[in-house]
């Protein structure tokens, strides 16, 4: 009898255990649901940018997030083919301005403009541009970035340049680049260069650099709102000629012909080869803290010098929701979590990526952090910037038209005038395909 009672008790306990465990889970609002997220590179294992917040989100909500990390080209291909087939297999994708423009114009992203409250919208920094297309919002940013002038303290001192007065005009900048380009070991060969930027290894970075120079020369946009090219103008020509001047005078780190992935860019600055760079703000944390950086104590940062004006471009990233997702409600919750003030502040302090929220800049911990110099420069630059070029045909324009024309002009395969004429004609042809 006693054994029978014990047996019955065990059976009751076994049958009741799922109920007991799920009672705890029912406190989690979305327990049992799943999200699939495709994202771009999230950083090395010892310093993941976004994933820690996703795991925290899982714990708080009970939602299981399948986090699929891909290179940006792979992400583009996977999502494009899935979206063309109207697949609901992916809910959220990592995005930047070009992807947002392309995917939103194709009708593949969920418009969430009306689902974002006014308070959040007002607090979002220029990083919102990464998920905006034609005035509509398709996601939330995870971080911001902006180009700043980086300069090397040691090299400036050796060249007799004033550390407290970095170049703020083009003439000062080019003069500094000339002084910083030299043979440091006496073997007759240049081994230190005055300048590096994104470079001309591919169309996209070449066009990014050219766009930056255009803005500095006073050209507000490469295309008008009717997609007509504006770069074949006196300002566009001046920008291209000044950019080419850096190469012609051999002031440019030769690695710029082959290196353009952002991590390789960071490593090149960290190797202490160049005296100045037009780098992304996120370079600052790498340069000043990474164990591989040789310029930890030598990296200084300031707003961009002016040609006609001091201007910069933004390079933020975000996450967008697939139009075909069956989990749009919880996808939006994930985006809000990643974009929260707490998480964006934590990401800034851990990794140096600019926050997607303006309020984070006023935080006392942030103001007093090791990133204060970079943040001060970024805050000044954010008053005078333009968005990175974004259009559904952006990739083709960069790789086959304008970016390619810039590279050919640098290599003297075309004159600057010929390059811009050719690029204008080709751009009109390419854009017509997308109308």
């Amino acid at each position: 009898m006693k054994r029978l009672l014990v047996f019955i008790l065990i059976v009751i306990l076994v049958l009741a255990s799922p109920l007991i465990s799920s009672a705890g889970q029912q406190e989690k609002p979305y327990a049992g649901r799943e999200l699939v997220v495709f994202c771009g590179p999230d950083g090395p294992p010892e310093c993941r940018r976004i994933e820690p917040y996703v795991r925290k989100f899982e714990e708080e909500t009970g939602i299981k997030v399948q986090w699929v990390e891909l290179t940006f080209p792979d992400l583009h291909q996977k999502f494009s083919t899935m979206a063309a087939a109207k697949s609901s297999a992916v809910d959220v994708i990592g995005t930047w301005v070009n992807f947002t423009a392309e995917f939103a114009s194709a009708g593949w992203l969920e418009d969430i403009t009306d689902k974002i409250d006014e308070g959040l919208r007002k607090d979002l920094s220029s990083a919102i541009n990464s998920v905006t297309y034609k005035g509509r919002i398709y996601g939330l940013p995870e971080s911001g970035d902006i180009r700043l002038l980086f300069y090397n303290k040691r090299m400036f001192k050796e060249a007799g340049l004033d550390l407290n007065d970095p170049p703020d005009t083009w003439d000062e900048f080019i003069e500094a680049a000339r002084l910083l380009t030299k043979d440091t070991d006496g073997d007759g060969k240049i081994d230190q260069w005055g300048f590096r930027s994104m470079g001309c290894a591919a169309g996209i970075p070449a066009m990014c650099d050219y766009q930056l120079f255009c803005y500095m020369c006073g050209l507000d946009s490469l295309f008008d709102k009717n997609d007509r090219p504006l770069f074949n103008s006196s300002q566009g020509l001046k920008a291209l000629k000044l950019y080419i001047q850096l190469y012609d005078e051999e002031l440019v780190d030769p690695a710029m012909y082959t290196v353009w992935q952002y991590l390789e860019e960071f490593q090149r600055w960290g190797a202490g080869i160049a005296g100045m760079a037009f780098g992304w703000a996120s370079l600052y944390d790498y340069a000043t803290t990474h164990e591989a950086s040789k310029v930890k104590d030598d990296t200084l940062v300031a707003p961009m010098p002016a040609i006609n004006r001091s201007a910069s471009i933004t390079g933020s990233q975000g996450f967008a929701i697939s139009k075909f997702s069956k989990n749009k409600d919880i996808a939006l919750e994930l985006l809000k979590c990643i974009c929260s003030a707490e998480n964006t502040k934590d990401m800034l302090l851990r990794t140096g990526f600019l926050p997607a929220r303006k309020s984070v800049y006023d935080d006392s911990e942030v103001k007093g952090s090791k990133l204060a110099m970079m943040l001060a420069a970024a805050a000044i630059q954010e008053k005078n910037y333009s968005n990175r070029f974004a259009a559904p045909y952006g990739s083709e324009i960069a790789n086959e038209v304008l970016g390619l024309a810039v590279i050919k002009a640098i290599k003297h395969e075309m004159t600057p005038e010929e390059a811009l004429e050719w690029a204008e004609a080709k751009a009109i042809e390419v854009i017509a395909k997308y109308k």
Partner: protein
Amino acid sequence: MGSKIIRNKKMSEQTFGMLLLSPTLIFLLAFVAFPICYSIYLSFQNVILSRPYSDEFVGLQNYINILRNPVFLNSLWKTLYFSVSFLFSVLVIGIIVALVLNHNFWGKSFVVTCLLIPWAIPRVVNGLIWKWIYDGNFGIFNAVLLKIGIIDSYKFWFGESPLVGILLISIAYTWKLMPFVALLFLAALQTMPRSLHEAAKVDGANVWQRFIYVTIPYLRYTLIIVLILQTTLAIKVFDIIAVLTRGGPGDRTMLTYYYVYRLAFDYLNISLASAGGYIIAIFIMILSILYYKLFKGGKD
């Protein structure tokens, strides 16, 4: 009555045979025939994946557009240059290695094993190895050239002229594919009767003459197979470009096959990419026929 039974039994064997073949046939229809037919259809349409409303019949316009595309045309010349340099090096080195391995020597098995290593390495890994070898900061290629005095400082080779970049890619590809070529030639050499060489020796032919007038004609059919296979591989080169240069800087190392991939997967222009792919396919078919006609020669 007996013959009727036999006829029925035969038909049933045929039917049974078809049933056994049907999974393979279905697979071939679904994954070979259908994609080929559909991609031919797409090449006459205007399909851009990010433009779902763009699908319309355009006839031969895609073929015309791609043949007028300067990046595609440039890529054809670069592919030709790459193919010639790759074929020359892989054939010459492959034959030399095969001739050496056709003799017995101490350590031959070890040498053959080492020879197979490049062939066994996955293509992407091969690309990564050569990316490090050619690296402008600390690549061994620069180190060796600097040591022997050919260069006076480390260079970013892919930023030099396009021809230099393509030549370097061709070296990396040759390293990967030469073992297979050498093994094909070795297999052919090992079936060659020694009496042919002995007869030529008796007639007074020297080593070089025996090679040209005896060995090469004997290897003719192997040469045709190798040329067709390696030409196809050269024109279709993709993985090493994707890992080493992605066609850059700019379009300096943009070869045709990689460009067609870019049209399809970066620009999502499936129709134009299909047209480009079929132009390449037609070109390979023409070359294969030419090789066969040129090298099959007269009677043995």
